């Protein structure tokens, strides 16, 4: 939810109790004023009648008296609320009565002035209308002010947010806008420092990778060149040549591991940022073709159901993904085994026969996981890293202990 909408919503919610309390207050206020005014009016009328009677010993021609009771004496005038039937509406409506008495020709008469009062429902209705009108007005004012104030106050925040969203690692750190608001100034400074650190760390890692790769690879090339030379110099079946061959083998494996680790860290560093729409079925078919002979040599039955699958990813990584998956399915397969490949726009499923494995299958996706035949290598870890980069979900399952299946859901 947008910040400004959230502000509106919270502010509006707080208006609700104001509405309720305000209505009650207005209700009693109106009621009080109506009583006050009615009583004042009736008192005034009573005084006029008493005064006129005192002077003329008669009632005025026009008076508001409702009825006169003979022989009733009130020590003091008093007010009384009563309900009367209103014939027009056929409804009981509240009235206010003022009872007082005068002495006429030695006899006491009780006089009653009666006045219509607005009903509670009428007052309530009025209060609600008043409050609602007021609220509507307040709401509109709030809408305008929050809009204007928010826009100007949060402007630097939104600018920073915009710049951050567009920020790509290893590009120059953008200058964040100056702001007079302390909090935003702190935010901008903190963000700038963080970006600088992120960029520094990134280039340091990259530099380390490149240095490591350059230095290691040159020396590995040296070892390989020299062991090759020794192999060709030593007597062919001698013990030495096998020792040297072991060194050569280790250095070749080290080269491979080093390349894979470098690849992993490059994927992690998001150095593959060529995002194109590719059809994975194309890459998958190429991979199957590439390893075709390997299937035949191990007499592995391959069945596949490959449909078009458009994905947005780096084409190089797509190739590495399919190569590593198929390679894995062959490498850890058994003689006369099977591989089943299914690709469509929803998922990629690769099932293969293999040796029994008792452990947790998902562990096999970790780098250098320990398998039945020792080290499982790094190929699946690379696959996992690629999946993480593009937010694909990958799972490894083993059914019947020997059927391994890897599923990637796009």
């Amino acid at each position, binding site marked *: 939810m947008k910040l400004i909408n959230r502000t509106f919503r919270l502010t509006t919610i707080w208006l609700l109790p104001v509405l309720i309390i305000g209505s009650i207050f207005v209700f009693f206020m109106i009621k009080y004023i109506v009583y006050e005014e009615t009583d004042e009016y009736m008192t005034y009328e009573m005084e006029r009648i008493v005064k006129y009677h005192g002077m003329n010993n008669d009632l005025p021609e026009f008076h508001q008296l409702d009825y006169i009771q003979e022989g009733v004496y009130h020590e003091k005038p008093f007010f009384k609320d009563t309900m009367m039937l209103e014939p027009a509406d056929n409804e009981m409506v509240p009235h206010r009565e003022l009872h007082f008495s005068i002495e006429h020709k030695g006899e006491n008469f009780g006089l009653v002035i009666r006045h219509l009062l607005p009903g509670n429902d009428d007052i309530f209705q009025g209060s609600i209308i008043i409050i609602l009108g007021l609220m509507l007005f307040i709401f509109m004012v709030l809408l305008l002010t929050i809009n204007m104030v928010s826009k100007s106050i949060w402007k630097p925040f939104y600018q920073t947010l915009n710049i951050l969203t567009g920020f790509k690692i290893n590009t120059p750190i953008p200058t964040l806008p100056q702001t007079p608001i302390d909090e935003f100034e702190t935010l901008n400074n903190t963000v700038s420092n963080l970006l600088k650190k992120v960029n520094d760390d990134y280039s340091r890692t990259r530099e380390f990778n*490149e240095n490591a*790769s*350059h*230095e290691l*690879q*040159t020396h*590995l*090339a*040296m*070892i*390989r*060149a*020299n062991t*090759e*030379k020794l*192999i*060709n110099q030593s007597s*062919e*079946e001698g013990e030495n*040549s*096998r020792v*040297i*061959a072991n060194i*050569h*083998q280790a*250095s*070749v*494996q080290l*080269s*491979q591991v080093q*390349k894979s680790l*470098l*690849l992993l860290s490059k994927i992690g560093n998001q150095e593959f940022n060529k995002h194109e729409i590719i059809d994975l079925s194309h890459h998958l078919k190429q991979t199957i073709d*590439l*390893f075709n*002979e*390997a299937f035949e*040599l*191990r007499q592995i039955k391959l069945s596949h159901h490959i449909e078009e699958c458009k994905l947005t990813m780096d084409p*190089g990584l797509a190739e590495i993904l399919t*190569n590593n998956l198929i*390679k894995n399915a*062959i*490498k850890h397969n058994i003689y006369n085994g099977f591989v089943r490949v299914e690709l469509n726009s929803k998922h990629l499923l690769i099932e293969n026969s293999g040796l029994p494995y008792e452990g947790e299958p998902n562990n096999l996706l970790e780098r250098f996981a320990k398998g039945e035949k020792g080290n499982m*290598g790094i*190929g699946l870890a690379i696959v996992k890293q690629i999946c993480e980069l593009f937010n694909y979900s990958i799972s490894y399952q083993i059914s019947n202990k020997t059927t391994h299946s890897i599923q990637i859901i796009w």
Partner: protein
Amino acid sequence: MKLLIIEDNPQLLDAIAETLSKEKFVCETAATYSAAHEKIHLYQYDILVVDINLPDGSGLQIIREIKKVHPATGIIVVSARNSLDNKIEGLELGADDYITKPFDMAELVARVKSLIRRRNFGGNNFIELGKLRIDPEQRKVYANEKTIELTRSEYDILLFFSSNVGRVITRESLAEHIWGDNMDLADSFDFIYSHIKNLRKKITQNGLPDPIKAVYGVGYKFEIAEA
């Protein structure tokens, strides 16, 4: 055939020069950008083996220069950086091949010979290995003028051997040559063993002696029988 090898590590430079000299190439060396720069302007070379990372400049710049002075020179880029960018840039500048460190000398020799074959359009492009004849352009192999049907890997292995006759090729070199970065497929080497077995069978079936000698625990050696 005159080669210039540009590589900043002196030991590796010596090793490359020594290996290629044994293949009857005339090898000159340069360990720095400035030395290489001077040599390409003074002399003419058929093939340049260039390391991208030089202490005083970039190998890519050398490629740009040679393309100006001797555009016919074949170029093999060597890089420690396993980065795709350098590869693409190198090939865009006109390099003919790209090899990443670390590599086996057998592989480099094969690449150099393959490049010479591709450059030498006019001449005889067949590779004669005793009574075996390889036609690299058609990817075909003949034994006593009869075609031998080889699978892709078998052909690649034979071609690799043809560039390294008489040298011991380790199983790792073979695996790396066939599968490149996917060589870990061949951890158990049963694939290599099967390919060699099939290749041998196909050659001997055509009445030729078995040219592939197993070197126990190490690898294989291709020898052309005298006769």
